[in-house]
């Protein structure tokens, strides 16, 4: 008798259609998430990275080009790039859910996937706090809430600490952040880079513009940056070449005072929790005297 009941129960559990959960994404849209969730495709490297971090890695079945961090992410099948996801390859992977970012992935691709019956959970991080929030949200998606919440709490602590470090800061250096070298591009007021610069106690010289504004040497000579940060790989140049292009202008204070710094572009251009590493790195770079202050 007991065995029959057990068998019936097992049969019920096995044949029962997968129950879905309804989650609300960062745009406030309702997204049906299958349960159990076993097949997820991430459409952008930052979310791939964060998914691995909260323990969702084993559930990922596809990622886009340049999703190279962590190492396991580099082994996932590729589904095009984040600006041009290959819908056919995505469909072939039969995902139960896709993860996208509003300002990264084309809207048309997201709509296309949804029209094909693949739910898409869209993130829209605007600040470092939103990035921490996406950690919690990914935890909800992958059912690794505890791990995600612990991680998020740690990130919040680090953000608070970095804010405290800057208390009573008197001088804010005028910083020019070069994203690309030829032509020269920087990051305007509506970017993550701007937030990082401001929160690390700097004045972003491109902060009076929006988007990714272009600069000429003429403008840079007038701007007189005190510190210049060069994102690595800009324009395909080596670190040495990147610096050499600036060293031709000793009139610029940053050049004169040896304040040219090349930083790892990967750390700065992805809205993932590694941005907090970037923030701490910037604070150390710009205010070495604050090191060690809790």
């Amino acid at each position, binding site marked *: 008798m007991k065995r029959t009941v057990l068998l019936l129960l097992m049969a019920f559990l096995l044949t029962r259609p997968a129950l879905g959960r309804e989650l609300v994404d960062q745009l406030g849209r309702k997204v049906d998430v299958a349960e159990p969730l076993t097949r997820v495709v991430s459409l952008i490297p930052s979310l791939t990275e964060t998914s691995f971090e909260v323990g969702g890695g084993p559930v990922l079945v596809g990622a886009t080009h340049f999703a190279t961090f962590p190492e396991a992410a580099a082994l996932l099948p590729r589904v095009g790039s984040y*600006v*041009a996801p*290959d*819908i*056919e390859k995505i469909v*072939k992977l*039969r995902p139960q859910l896709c993860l996208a970012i509003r300002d990264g992935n084309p809207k048309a691709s997201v709509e296309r996937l949804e029209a*094909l019956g693949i739910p898409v959970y869209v993130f829209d991080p605007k600040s470092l706090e939103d990035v921490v929030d996406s950690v919690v949200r990914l935890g909800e998606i992958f059912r690794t809430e505890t791990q995600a919440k612990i991680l998020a709490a740690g990130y919040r602590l680090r953000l608070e600490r970095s804010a405290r470090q800057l208390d009573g800061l008197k001088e804010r250096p005028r910083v020019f952040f070069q994203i690309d070298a030829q032509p020269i591009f920087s990051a305007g007021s509506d970017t993550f880079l701007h937030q990082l610069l401001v929160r690390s106690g700097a004045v972003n010289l491109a902060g009076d513009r929006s988007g990714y504004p272009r600069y000429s040497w003429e403008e840079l000579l007038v701007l007189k940056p005190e510190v210049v940060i060069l994102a690595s790989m800009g324009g395909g140049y080596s670190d040495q070449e990147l610096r050499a292009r600036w060293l031709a202008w000793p009139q610029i204070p940053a050049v004169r005072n040896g304040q040219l710094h090349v930083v790892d572009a990967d750390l700065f251009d992805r809205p993932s929790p590694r941005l907090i590493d970037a923030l701490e790195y910037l604070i150390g770079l710009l205010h070495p005297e604050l090191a060690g202050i809790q």
Partner: protein
Amino acid sequence: MLGYIPVYRKLITVTLILSLLLITAVLLGLTSGSSGDTGAAWQLLLSRGAPDATLETIIWQLRWPRVVLAAAVGAALSLGGLVFQALLRNPLAEPYILGVSGGSAVGAILGILAGFSLFPGLAFSSFAGSLSVLLLVLLLSKRREGSGDALLLGGVMVNAFCGAIIMFLISVSKTVQVQKIIFWLMGDLSAAGTNSLPLLFGILPCFLLIFLLAQPLNLLLTGRESASAMGVNVAAVSLVLLLTASLMVSLTVCLSGLIGFVGLTIPHVLRLILGPDHRVLVPACILTGASYLILCDLLARSLPSHGEMAVGIVTALVGAPLFIMLLWRERR
């Protein structure tokens, strides 16, 4: 009437043969793609093998709209080329070279920047762009009548100007939009979705209208005076044909972006093989243009090892040398 019988016979033979070509192209287009597995796709189309819901979605909801879009764009562009070449009695006339595509592009890019939806916004702004360029080119050539290349010169100039406007628009727009515009400028069919298909029904009446006007088009080729002596209302027929061709081209350009050389290569090849009768050339252009672009898109999808290439690159890479070869042989 007796003279018509061979034409009909030729029309039917040519249509049948080219329809077979089109069907082959469609089948090839449906069975190959980035996810591989051509064999399974063939089995599914022949309704053998195990049913596979994923593959079915890929074939019918992803590849099918794309193949249909490629066919429609290819047909519209080559028919547009044929009509422009006959009307303007200039073998180089083609939507791309005359600046009609360029004008349509400026209209569509303005539409993209303004955030218009595909229909009616983008379709309308691109139609308005192509029409104003066409008018401008025609006016320019009117003023310089007598010099045979006036029209072409006007087209080249207007096209260059459109190019400058496009570059200007790109340099002032945001990064996200720039990507969209650049993909679109290279001629890209990857945006094809089931929602764009209704727009394509708009070009079917255009095909029919042009086919019905094929005989007047033949007469126009003999010259305006002799055509009007044979009872063709030259002004009316020209206007209707120009409008129809521009409408057809801009409807497709707003979906596919700029695709060059289709309107030049296909009509020339067909004229070489089939002779100058437009009653045969019109359906032949539609069918061959459709097959040609499907096959070019197939190459665009499968040549790069990852991602895909814009189809406009393939049509130019294949079309330009082909056209040069034709010119070379004609000279000798």
